[in-house]
């Protein structure tokens, strides 16, 4: 079922910084709730997993994704992503447009996702409202994680480990909840722990 | 494969069987016990064809696991006639009023209405329609089923 989902988030960083971060898939992907970065393919795409909970249903989409357009001047990027549920419950494919608007200290990241679902996931009739609701939450999460990563000095964070931990915390378990501050602090705490562990590892 | 022994009493007969825990009660009755009078029409709890009496009350046997019926009493359409084999008032009325055509929804209709009449033998037509509104029938257009139920209720009152 095709869905056009408009979402956005604001961060207190210059758009150049965000641009560099977002366009570096190996860095930004792990910040996306549910995303697991896989190997890089010859065509420049990445293999990947996307774990998402649609209400009571937990899906694990296995597929590939990558940039099909990068427009540095206008800070516009186009991402293509396709995936199939590991348990044979259908698939999803989408084109995601990302536009950065802002100035030297604030950036408004606008994301338009054109997603079409197939198979039983598309037929879970009560899903539409759910998917839209969830998307914004995921994007909010993404924004927070990006900020956290920059805060925690993006240069020193090893993506792999970080992605793993983010995954464990964010995705397969209970989705995060704006009305639930405890959970967010837990998340922040988690990211810093990862960061310090990595420092210690050195 | 997670298999367990269960003991279940269906239409007065006690069965001991091994079941896989994911097996629905509907499939257990039909496949393991060869009681194929209970029909499976949708497997998501809407059509009502699989309705049985579970410890005396109606339940969708496609939404119940066989393992959950361990130590329970189940009555199916095969168990609705009197012990001597004569039709229940409801079965008889269904026949007289042409309350069934293809007969596939009939087991669910009969079990549902058996419970209904056991609690109300003086129903209005609308109450009967409400009572079977969770049972889909594609053949009859329902009216003959309602007529049959009203006739059965009348006979039960006169009994």
């Amino acid at each position, binding site marked *: *079922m095709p869905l056009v989902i408009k979402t956005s988030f604001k961060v207190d960083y210059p758009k150049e910084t965000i641009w560099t971060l977002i366009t570096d898939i190996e860095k930004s992907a792990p910040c996306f709730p549910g995303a697991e970065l896989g190997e890089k393919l010859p065509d420049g795409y990445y293999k990947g997993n996307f774990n998402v*909970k*649609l*209400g*009571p*249903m937990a899906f694990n989409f296995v597929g590939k994704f990558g940039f099909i357009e990068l427009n540095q001047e206008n800070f516009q990027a186009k991402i293509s992503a396709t995936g199939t549920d590991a*348990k*044979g*419950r259908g698939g999803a494919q989408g084109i995601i447009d990302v536009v950065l608007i802002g100035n030297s200290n604030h950036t408004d990241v606008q994301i338009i996702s054109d997603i079409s679902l197939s198979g*039983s996931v598309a037929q*879970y*009739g*009560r*899903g*539409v*409202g*759910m998917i839209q*609701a*969830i998307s914004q*939450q995921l994007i909010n999460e993404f924004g927070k994680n990006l900020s956290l990563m920059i805060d925690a000095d993006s240069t020193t964070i090893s993506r792999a480990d970080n992605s793993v931990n983010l995954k464990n915390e964010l995705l397969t*378990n*209970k*989705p995060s*909840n704006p*009305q*639930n501050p405890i959970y967010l602090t837990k998340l922040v705490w988690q990211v810093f722990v990862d960061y310090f562990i990595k420092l210690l590892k050195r | *494969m*997670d298999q*367990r022994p269960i003991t279940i009493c269906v239409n007065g007969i006690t069965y001991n069987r091994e079941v*896989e*825990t*994911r097996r*629905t009660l509907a*499939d257990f009755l039909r496949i393991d016990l060869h009681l194929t009078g209970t029909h499976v029409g949708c*497997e*998501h*709890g809407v059509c*009502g064809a699989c*309705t049985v009496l*579970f410890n005396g*009350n*109606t*339940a*969708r046997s*496609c*939404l*119940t*696991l066989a*393992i*959950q019926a361990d130590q329970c009493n189940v009555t199916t359409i095969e168990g609705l006639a009197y012990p001597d084999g004569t039709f229940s008032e409801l079965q008889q009325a269904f026949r007289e009023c042409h309350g069934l055509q293809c007969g596939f929804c009939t087991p669910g209709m009969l079990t*549902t209405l058996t*419970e*209904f009449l056991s609690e109300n033998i003086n129903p209005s037509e609308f109450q009967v329609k*409400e*009572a079977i*509104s*969770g049972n889909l029938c594609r053949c009859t257009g329902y009216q003959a089923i309602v007529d049959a139920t009203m006739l059965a209720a009348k006979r039960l009152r006169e009994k």
Partner: protein
Amino acid sequence: MKPAPFSYHCPSSLTEALDLVAKLENYKIIAGGQSLMPMLNFRFLMPEHVIDINKIPELVGVSKEHHQLRIGAMTRQHTIHTSPLVKENAPLITEAYGLVSHRQVRNRGTYGGSLCHLDPSSEQPCFTAALDGVIEVASLAGKREIAMANWTTMYMTPDLAPDEIMLGVRLDIWPPNHGWSFMEYSRRHGDYAIVGVAALVVINSNNCIEKISITLCGIDAAPVRLYAAEKILIDHDASDIAVKKVMIEIENLPDVMEDSLNTADYRRHLAKTMTNRALKIAFERARKRI
């Protein structure tokens, strides 16, 4: 349409159940199974473990405690629907259950199961919010209480941690002279509501509204309690003008959910219709009981 394999657990006590949810990953709890089983049959859900809490006596029962009604999570919907205690203390609930699905489903379906499944169109979260329900949950770490207002974290996702089990709900008992009405629009008898409304009101002898509660389902992921409207109506006379004021609040609801079958506009239209009718009935009943 057969469930994927799972291992089945059937604890006979709460502690046993809490041990299980604490140690198991990727499990689902089966209560009445009337929502879970279809999702298992469709393989929308493919959990590794299914924990059956039908054999835990502590979770069943309806009782009156102080000024509240307590309903155990595993109490069958039919039991609640036909309970004299419920009818006497919360007739709204009895009326609502008349609209919940069909007898065959209510015989098995449970109140707690419905609150955990948390379908946005379901009547049960709606009347729970209307009666300021407080949900009791437990884990090995102890008990926790969540107001219905905070129970929904997001679409069909309750604020229930993986190591927690819902015990029951405490609901406010309204004064004996209150008026009530539960109204909904569904396409067919027994279907999920597209939009439903729970209304409660206390009116004094000068036809003034002393206490009121209005809650909608089918509008958002969580039941929508019209607090603003309630505020406006306190001390207002129970008249058509009062009802009109509520209509305006509904007209101004920020965002109304939408799906492939029913648009936001239609849901809003239904919300107004149902609330309008429910309030009038609730007022009427309240007046009769003055």
